């Protein structure tokens, strides 16, 4: 159970595939337009349940609870040996 007041992410469908604009590429046309919003959980809830959050600007948004205490996992990726080669090449030419 995720407690009321926890910072969470919700997912919702803005437009179902059939409701989407008609000028989309075929691959996109088959998908729903999804939205992810973060906020404070308004009532206790479970992952996967339909909940309401209060966002940073104080708005209420509704959707499926997907994650509690969401963090960012961006990083510098795996080693890319070519970048080291570029470094050696350009320095070697000067």
């Amino acid at each position: 159970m995720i407690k009321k007041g926890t910072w969470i992410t919700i997912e919702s469908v803005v437009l179902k595939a059939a409701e989407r604009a008609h000028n989309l590429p075929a691959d996109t046309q088959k998908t729903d337009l999804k939205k992810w919003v973060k906020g404070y959980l308004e009532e206790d809830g479970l992952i996967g349940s339909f909940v309401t959050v209060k966002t940073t600007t104080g708005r209420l948004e509704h959707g499926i609870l997907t994650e509690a205490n969401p963090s960012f996992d961006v990083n510098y990726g795996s080693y890319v040996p070519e970048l080291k080669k570029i470094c050696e090449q350009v320095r070697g030419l000067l």
Partner: protein
Amino acid sequence: MKNAKDMSYAALMARRSDIMKSSLGIDYETYERGSIAFDYEAMMGFGGYTFEDVRRIQQNSAVGDTPLIELKNITALMRNSAKPGKGARIFIKDEAGNPSGSFKERRASISCHHAKKMGFKGVIAATSGNYGAAVAAQAARYGLKCIVVQECYDSNKTGQPEIIEKARKCEALGAEVIQLSVGPELFYVFLALLEETGYMNASLYTPFGIAGIETLGYEIAEEIKKKYGRFPDAVVCTHAGGGNLTGTARGLLHAGADKTVVIGASVDLTGLHMASDVNFNQKSFTTGHTGFGMPFATNPDRSDVPRSAGRPLRYMDKYFLITQGEVFYMTEALAVLEGLERGPAGNTSLAAAFSIAREMDEDEILVVQETEYTGAGKHPQAQLSFARENDIDIKFGNPKDSVPGKSIIFPDSPDKIQAIEQDLTRLRKSLIKNKTAGYSLGNITPEDISFLADETKTDEVFVRVCLEELSKV
């Protein structure tokens, strides 16, 4: 439910015009002229901010006056492959020095100042780029609430590392971030939020969004003139939505640099559809590319305001494309030869400049007009390893053999960095075709002809010949 508005896609889009008017305070209809013309300069005067006002607003919010740095080592590297007497000096305007790390803060500063002045409680911007952080930073300074709407994930919720980093930065600066899967209906979400909150539309394409960049062109002209006694011979701008080049060129003209050649540069992503769920994560550049650069050049009013203030073909003298591999290569060179870890997307203009400067005389001066911050996710290593995970073939060779979405090819030597010049006449004709679609020759007024000449930096003869050609098709 009492007074519940119809939020269906069609109903909300039908309210678009009213939402735009109340969220901007600009009545675009007052600028309309002729059949297709509008008074661009009158629109640019909206809000009544003079150039000096814009400078003062920016100086009060720590924006602008960034260092202009001569890239002596990169110039030397470029001259290795230049003919005798050739190879212009390359300078770069280190716009990463703005509070949120990019030139976009120049644009945000005026919008946020105006929002505060007009009593809006907050601002909303639709952007997956640096502009989100710029608006968040300036909103923070002005005590405004801020919502940033991003296209961020494919339908499996796999995100572009570069865009996720920008979401992080927006949140770090106190903004609310709304993330969407791929698709142009982001505009629907954006409109719904404007209607719900009553916040100001801090679009990139309002007159404020462009006036804010004029200071950048002006600073470049003034600083080069002060140090070297003349204006720069060429300025290269990364071109996507058109605002960067438009504002920079207007600033150069404001300083009197009317002989400076204004050059646009975009990353070539030909073949990748910008609204494709599958293609979304096959590209390693989320801005500065042809997916925006071509359509926004030839049809600037496809933006999120009725009339875009970013109108690049009014100012562009030359336009070059460069590949993803070449930009990554130059990003690495900038770090290891000049000690400037920046970009990568903002280095699109640098990569093109490396090739353009090679053909210029050695006593000429070329300025690359921006850098941007780099960080986790938004970094060559993060983006290239993400590309590898998405089965993109990454190798050395001839960059011209690369296929966007399939391969990224680093030049196997710097002389292989070759920006490809585009046919501006073709783009200008395309703009005229787009603007006159649905009109017969008889409906096009002399005012329209004059407008189209301004829109394409040509003359009325060019426009008339083009219209004749179109009428025969």
